[in-house]
């Protein structure tokens, strides 16, 4: 156990801190769930990329910086502490990226990864279908092999920002006789291909945060756009689902920053604290939860660095960060009282309505990337070994 950073790590932190201090937009960007904000965020991502700070853990030849996971944690700490913009291309960078590194051909890696790192290509995900949500294996969209191509028909849904994105990745049933997890293929589809129709879905906050994507005889070349083996898409996707729930998707720094802001909010409202003395516990529990999550991340990174694999722990992580995020924002709403309902556009909104936005977004946490009910089943069955139903 050696809990000091190396000189290199400290230098890296200093560099990132200085760069962010200089470059982080002074005025918050417009929400990336709008066309305008989306492009603002793409610009920001390009800027990060130019400084080789977009995907610090990716190898240099693929647009990254070759950092290790400790440096990644440091980067994230500085990034959230600086209040830098939300990352708009997480689907590409955190879900598809690692999948391509593991399953992609050399050609696919060269072609896609640098453009993901730079966000020249923005990616939407195509997991869910109207009847395949928690039950992802119920996928019906078909991809029929026709010569060198796949011809895709069907529908995906809950594709985050697909209305603005350039590409979509997802699972399609390539063996029409197959059932459940079998006979699926993992395909990459440009969203401007003929036959693709995108219908936006408005989220709770009224913005077009996701979309339905319809495929009508959409043709993509197999050699270039199939990831992994034909019919083995489930295995490819599951690796990605592991990443998603795992370490990278929700770095601890995010919640530590929220906890810090919550403490500031609490201290700025002493008259509420006096009327509601139990708030103190909620606030310190928020800090303890975020701190524990961060320490757990360092511990896990240490184990991974020694060769360990992340298993069902990823499911615990998902439950913990999503419920922590809810708790932090619920506590903020409790402090704000009657001011909590004010939207960002309201003149008297506190912090530009960011607590309310965060509160709304936190509602989705226990649902997406596999509901917490499913995650708890996984923990119980795979980690504890309890019998299946």
């Amino acid at each position: 156990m050696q809990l000091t950073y190396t000189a290199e790590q400290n230098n890296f932190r200093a560099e990132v801190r200085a760069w962010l201090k200089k470059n982080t937009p002074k005025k918050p960007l417009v929400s990336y769930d709008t066309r305008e904000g989306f492009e603002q965020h793409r610009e920001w991502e390009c800027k990060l990329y130019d400084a080789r700070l977009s995907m610090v853990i990716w190898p240099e030849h693929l647009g990254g910086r070759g950092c290790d996971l400790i440096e990644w944690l440091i980067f994230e700490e500085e990034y959230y502490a600086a209040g830098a913009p939300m990352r708009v291309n997480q689907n590409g960078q955190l879900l598809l990226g690692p999948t391509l590194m593991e399953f992609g051909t050399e050609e696919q890696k060269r072609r896609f990864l640098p453009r993901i790192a730079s966000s020249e290509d923005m990616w939407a995900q195509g997991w869910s279908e109207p009847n395949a949500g928690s039950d992802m294996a119920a996928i019906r969209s078909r991809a029929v092999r026709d010569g060198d191509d796949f011809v895709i028909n069907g529908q995906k849904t809950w594709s985050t920002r697909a209305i603005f994105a350039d590409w979509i990745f997802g699972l399609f049933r390539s063996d029409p006789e197959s059932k459940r997890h079998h006979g699926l293929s993992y395909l990459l589809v440009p969203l401007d291909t003929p036959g693709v129709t995108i219908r936006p879905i408005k989220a709770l906050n009224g913005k077009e945060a996701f979309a339905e994507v319809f495929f009508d005889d959409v043709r993509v070349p197999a050699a270039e756009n199939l990831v992994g083996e034909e019919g083995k898409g489930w295995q490819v996707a599951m690796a990605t689902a592991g990443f998603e729930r795992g370490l990278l998707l929700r770095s601890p720094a995010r919640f530590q920053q929220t906890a810090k802001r919550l403490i500031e909010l609490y201290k700025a409202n002493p008259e509420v604290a006096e009327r509601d003395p139990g708030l103190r516990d909620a606030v310190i529990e928020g800090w303890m939860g975020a701190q524990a999550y961060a320490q757990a991340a360092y511990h896990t990174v240490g184990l991974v660095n020694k060769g360990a694999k992340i298993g069902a722990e990823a499911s615990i992580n998902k439950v913990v960060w999503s419920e922590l995020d809810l708790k932090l924002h619920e506590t903020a709403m409790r402090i704000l009282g009657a001011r909590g309902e004010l939207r960002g556009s309201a003149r008297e909104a506190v912090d530009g309505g960011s607590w309310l936005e965060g509160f709304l977004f936190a509602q989705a946490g226990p649902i997406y990337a596999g509901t917490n009910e499913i995650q708890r089943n996984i923990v119980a069955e795979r980690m504890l070994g309890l019998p299946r139903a």
Partner: protein
Amino acid sequence: MDFTFNEDQLAFREAISRFLAAELPPEVLRKNWETEDGCSRELHRKMVEQGLTGLSVPEAQGGLEMDDTAWVLLTPLLGYYAIADSVVDTAYTATGLLSALPEGDHRREELLTGIAGGDVGVAVAHQVNPLVVDMDLADVVLVEFEGEIHALNQEAVSYECNTSIDSSRRLGRISVQPAPESRLLENGRDIWAETLNRGAVGVAGQALGLAQRMLDMSVEYASQRQQFGKPVGSFQAVKHHLADVAEKIEFAKPVLYRAAHALANNERGSDLYSSHAKLACCEAAWLAARHGIQVYGAMGYTWEADLQIFMKRAWALDSYWGDRAFHKSRVAEAVLADDALIGPQHTFEE
């Protein structure tokens, strides 16, 4: 000792319930919620015809002169159908305030008659609410000024509008200059105190109705939505989420009823009981929202699922007429007092 409602009260609730169900199918309800004034003119007219606005207006002013115990059966229905705040604020809270004024005042009688007839909308500016709801829909606003009660015409009040997560609520920061002409009563402190309790009980009732609506919607969704080859409502975790909501609702109800009775009879426990009711009902609504969206899954996070309307009202009403901090403090003050009447012999005051 009979802690139930009589047949007339229940029949009236039943009638209003049928009326609202017919008038407010989900698509109409949503349309109202998304429009500027949160309640169509036509619907308002029909509510007036049903006697809703005159429910507690004195008979002398053309109303039904019913008390808080009748209202407490109706506010849950108004919550269930997400009727905008201005209805309860006018017909229950403001009417209660006006009715409590000394009889004979011509402005009192004019306003009450106007309310019963559906011609006058009244907003209430009580200091417990930093912002006034739906000033833009009101003809008159009742304002506290150093314990006095003033009534000002809307035009006489300047306000700045803030938007709420609940689209049916527009929140105004008002600035007024009360004058002797606008004064209804010089010493209005007791009435203001009672009005706060009435406002809280009105919100509590709506919150209870919101909770019931979200529960009903969640049960229906969970019974139809299939995953892993069966309805999601057949999974034990989903069942327990919704059973917990049902529990909160069932045990908030009598607390709400108790508060209404205390209000109607000016009992000394009114502050305590109305705060308890506000906390219990809003807790039920908060949980119904959380478990509702969880049961709905991604669909619950969308604008198109009606669930959002009820969730957002639940979140907004949680702090209307006193936030949790306020009401918990009042409960603490009452039950921790040295002369508090607590314990099994004091379920009902003696």
